């Protein structure tokens, strides 16, 4: 049996067109490649310090 109140919580307001720019800027675009590059860079820094 569907609980109306619980189901209603799953619905969120849509972004309006005016909010789109802000949403784009706030979007986290970090991907696995970025994480890999950072890990490689940190590894290099550690090696240089040693």
């Amino acid at each position, binding site marked *: *049996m*569907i609980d*109306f109140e619980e*189901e*209603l919580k*799953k*619905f*969120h*307001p*849509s*972004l*309006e*067109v*005016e*909010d*789109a720019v802000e*949403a*784009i800027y706030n*979007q986290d*675009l*970090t*991907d*696995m*490649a*970025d994480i*890999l*590059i950072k890990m*490689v860079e940190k590894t290099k820094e550690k090696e240089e310090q040693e």
Partner: protein
Amino acid sequence: MICYNCGCRLSEHDFCTGCGVDVSLYKKIMYMSNRFYNDGLDKATVRDLSGAVISLRQSLKFNKNNIDARNLLGLVYFEMGEVVAALSEWVISKNLRPKKNIADDYIDMIQNNQSRLDAINQTIKKYNQALVYCYQDSQDLAVIQLKKVLSYNPKYIRAHQLLALLYINIEEWEKAKKELLKCCQIDTNNTTTLRYLKEVEHMLMPEDAAKNAPKKKTSSDEVIRYQSGNETIIQPVNGKDKSGVSSLLNLGIGVVIGVAIACFLILPARIQSAQADINDELRIVSEQSDVKTATIDEQQQKIQSLTDENQRLSDELASFEGTDGALKATDGLMMAVSTYLTNPEDIETIAGYMESLETQEGEEEETRTASFTALQENFLTLTGEQLGTYYYNAGYESYNADNYEEAIPNLERAYRYNETNADALFYLGNSYRRLGDNDKAKEIYAQVIDNFPDTRRANEAETYLAEINNEN
């Protein structure tokens, strides 16, 4: 694929040929991104838009620069009615690759049509307002708002789902199902849609629920439950007795139904079938009878024709027999002549042949030829006296023996062959008189008197004639 360190194009090796950095892991990440993009593309092709969104977002988490995946994600959002989300993806895509990017066309398509952009914005606002109404428990207003939203943007999945949820809440199951089916036409495999649809279809089958409810109740009423140690014993109440009575009752009902079926369904069908068979047989027999009648008529016609033919042939044969009779007479005369030439004294044999000739003489005189008659006359000239004597002796002998019936033909022949023999004619008259044929006797006596006048036989004939006349 470009090296993340120096920007050099990577080869098939696991290191960059430009800077020597190990790129094996980087390559794997790029491959994973491409793999998720392919999966998202497949799902989008079969309208599994929710699945495509998941795959494409995974693809972008591995590689944010996967432009194809991002553009496709924007397109999928747009198809689901999420215009702002689609615009966001396309704008990011355009920033990541400013040139030769199809996202440019998509953005232009929306931004160049200001009225459409305003309509989209109004739609989003109304949706959000409807959501607010829902939180405020103003569901009627929410339904009205959502209907307006869907009239502007019929592919807005979230609006369809929210409207269906509101219908479910007010138990408008048919309307909810209609909205959910529209959702399925846009996005075939949306988990939320399918969950709501399952609930609605379950509620749209009240018959099953109604059937199940009393069964449970009766089953619980007809048993006795009690605890025996750690075990729960469930015992039916009067199970055996009821089952026995009900079995007999069911058996009786079954028999009655069977008889009724036999009487009202099977028996008429059998009777009709039997009547049909009889009619068929009657028709066959009738046809056979007609055939036989026709055959009989034909046979009767044949018999009639054969009878006619037979009659015709008989007549023809009779005519031939006439000819045959003439031939036989000729044969008789020829044999008599032959016998005379061979043995002139054999009068008896000659007489026999002449008798056969005589017998047929009266019947077939017309068929005889002139030569036959001439031969016969000549032959009688030669043998007539002898034949007359022969027949007179035979006739007189019979006369003396009082055998008048035998005497009459011989005496007639004797007089025919020898007309001078008055005794033969006189004894012929006596024979008729003795037999009682007085008329014939008077005729013969008259001939004696006429042919042999003044003779003793004539006197005697006159006497006998007078006696006969006196007797009369």
